[in-house]
């Protein structure tokens, strides 16, 4: 392995890890707070990619507007998803809440994907790069401004999320609910209003991720499938509900995938990644940072 390979792998690790982190951190946030696994997170990436296409290509507006619109639209869709697929099941007995919401959010994802198929058609739409151009870092290792922006915005958003959770009243409320639901209720946290907000916020992060992923690849109704799968692998690996675990996992998985891509090619990178995760799970069934006593129901 040459030095160019090593630098190439490192650059790709940061880019992949940041975008995985952005999509997966929403899932972690939702799992930590609501104890559900949001399968509609992938459709938010898809919606984001179409918003990016609509704003950048059809309307010809600036990338900042695309991000803003993606945030607003996917925030609204995420809130709506929570209200129709999770809220009605809260507090009812006689079934496994985690599993049933897994199915209901999956149902919502089916509807979103097929509405998109109906409205936009099955064909991949090219989205112009959010930012064009690039720099040569080291002897032929290119870093496009597109990838650089993607990594920087993702890292910035994750930092903003961290600040939001640490400093604001609503952020503290989300963390309080994640730590101890009953105590948070007794302290007067309006839990039933907090849940839609959390899911809207997480969906909006995935939506912004979708704008970038759409510009990197394409906008089409299946644009959320692979990111969903990758986010799932990240959250299993990191341990559900652990924000630091998700971050470590996102970059570790970015590193594994970038290495596999450089050494054996793109075709095998996902199967290799999956094999490694399988081995890790046999040793650590709750991921890197997941706590064994997570089950609450």
């Amino acid at each position, binding site marked *: 392995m040459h030095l160019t390979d090593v630098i190439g792998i490192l650059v790709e690790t940061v880019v992949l890890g940041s975008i995985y982190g952005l999509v997966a951190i929403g899932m972690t946030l939702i799992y930590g707070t609501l104890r559900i696994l949001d399968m509609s997170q992938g459709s938010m990436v898809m919606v984001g990619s179409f918003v990016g296409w609509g704003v950048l290509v059809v309307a010809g507006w600036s990338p900042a507007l695309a991000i803003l619109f993606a945030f607003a639209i996917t925030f609204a869709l995420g809130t709506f998803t929570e209200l129709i697929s999770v809220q*009605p099941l809260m507090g009812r007995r*006689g079934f496994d809440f985690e*599993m049933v919401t897994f*199915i209901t959010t999956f149902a919502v994802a089916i509807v979103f994907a097929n509405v998109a198929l109906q409205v936009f058609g099955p064909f991949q739409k090219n989205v112009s790069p959010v930012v064009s151009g690039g720099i040569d870092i080291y002897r032929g290792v290119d870093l496009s401004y597109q990838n650089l922006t993607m990594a920087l915005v993702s890292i910035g958003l994750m930092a903003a999320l961290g600040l939001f959770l640490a400093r604001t009243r609503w952020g503290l409320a989300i963390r309080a609910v994640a730590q101890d639901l009953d105590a948070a209720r007794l302290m007067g946290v309006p839990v039933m209003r907090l849940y839609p907000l959390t899911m809207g916020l997480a969906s909006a992060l995935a939506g912004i991720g979708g704008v970038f992923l759409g510009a990197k690849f394409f906008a089409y109704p299946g644009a959320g499938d692979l990111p969903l799968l990758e986010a799932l692998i990240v959250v*299993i690996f990191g341990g*559900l509900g652990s924000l630091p675990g998700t971050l470590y996992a996102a970059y570790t998985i970015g590193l594994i995938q970038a290495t596999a891509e450089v050494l054996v090619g793109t*075709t095998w990178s996902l199967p290799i990644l999956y094999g490694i995760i399988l081995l890790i799970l046999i040793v650590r*069934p709750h991921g890197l940072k997941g706590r064994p006593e997570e089950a609450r129901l």
Partner: protein
Amino acid sequence: MSAVTAPGATVSPTATRIGRGRALSGAEKAGILALVAVAVLVPFVWSNDYAVGVMVTAMITLVLNISWNFVLGIAGVWNFGQLAIYALGGYGTGLLMLHTPVPPPLAILLGGLLAAGVSILLAFPTLRLHGIYTSLLTFSFAQVFLFIVVNDPAGLTGGSFGFPTVRGLYSFLPPTTALHAYFWTVLAVAAAATLLVAWIRSSRLGIALRTIRDSPAYAAARGISPLRYRVIAFAISGFIAGVAGGLYLSYNQSFTTSAMGLTPMSIDVTMLVIGGLGTIWGPILGTGVLTGLQVSLVDYPGIQLTILGTILLVIVVFVPSGLVGLLSQIRSRISAWVAEDEEADDAAVPIAREES
């Protein structure tokens, strides 16, 4: 997870504990017999090849759903990787038909064994995990398998273009006769799978599986090993799914990746949930109702899945126990009303518990 409660089909309070009992009540046996008897006659009465073909496909899906229901509903392992196992059975059968002189029925059985083997291998890492991690791992297993097949690095599966054409079970017969032969073969397999699962469900193995599902602490206290019984469940379920895959390949004389993507997974999960997980009649009802719905929506392919997704959402939110649960609730309401039982409403509670 307190009390160990009972199959939704029976409403008598004495039956609300898991017991050995009979696999199927007299009425249920009669129902299945009548259904099979009517179905056997269909190709004679209804000479519409399209309709018979739809039913063949539906019954292959039914066999897959029976296998899925066994591991998901009866064993209570949230396995979402079943379509990959089904496809493995199909591809295994196809490779045998294409490259070896093995007779087609044997190829289908061997495909089933291959699927069972991989299912067992999948069981070990899966059963290390609990709760939602199980569904995550198996769901990603199916997706990664799909990804490998689509990219087809080894050149075995034909990738997204589909498997090369094989001869199938009845290629020596004229088309309409072959179709009818498939109809009866698949009907026999579906009936056999239903009876097998019904029998296992009330056998020692089935009782152990349901106890592990409903009350893991009690099962552990009685020395029932979750790993051993659930691996057996994976093997049986994998074999049935693999046979279904082999039948699918044989009937279509090919196998494409569109049989194992997110779309068929959504449809199958909807069938299982709408029918009622963990019950014997659930897969039959769910597959029947959804096939009818799909056929009636065939002129509107665009909105078909949108409607199915909406139905899945509505059913899960309003009736988490599915049609079988709903029917037995209604039945128990009526019988309670007939008996003028004061506690009529409570009769529904143990039934609602079943589908957790």
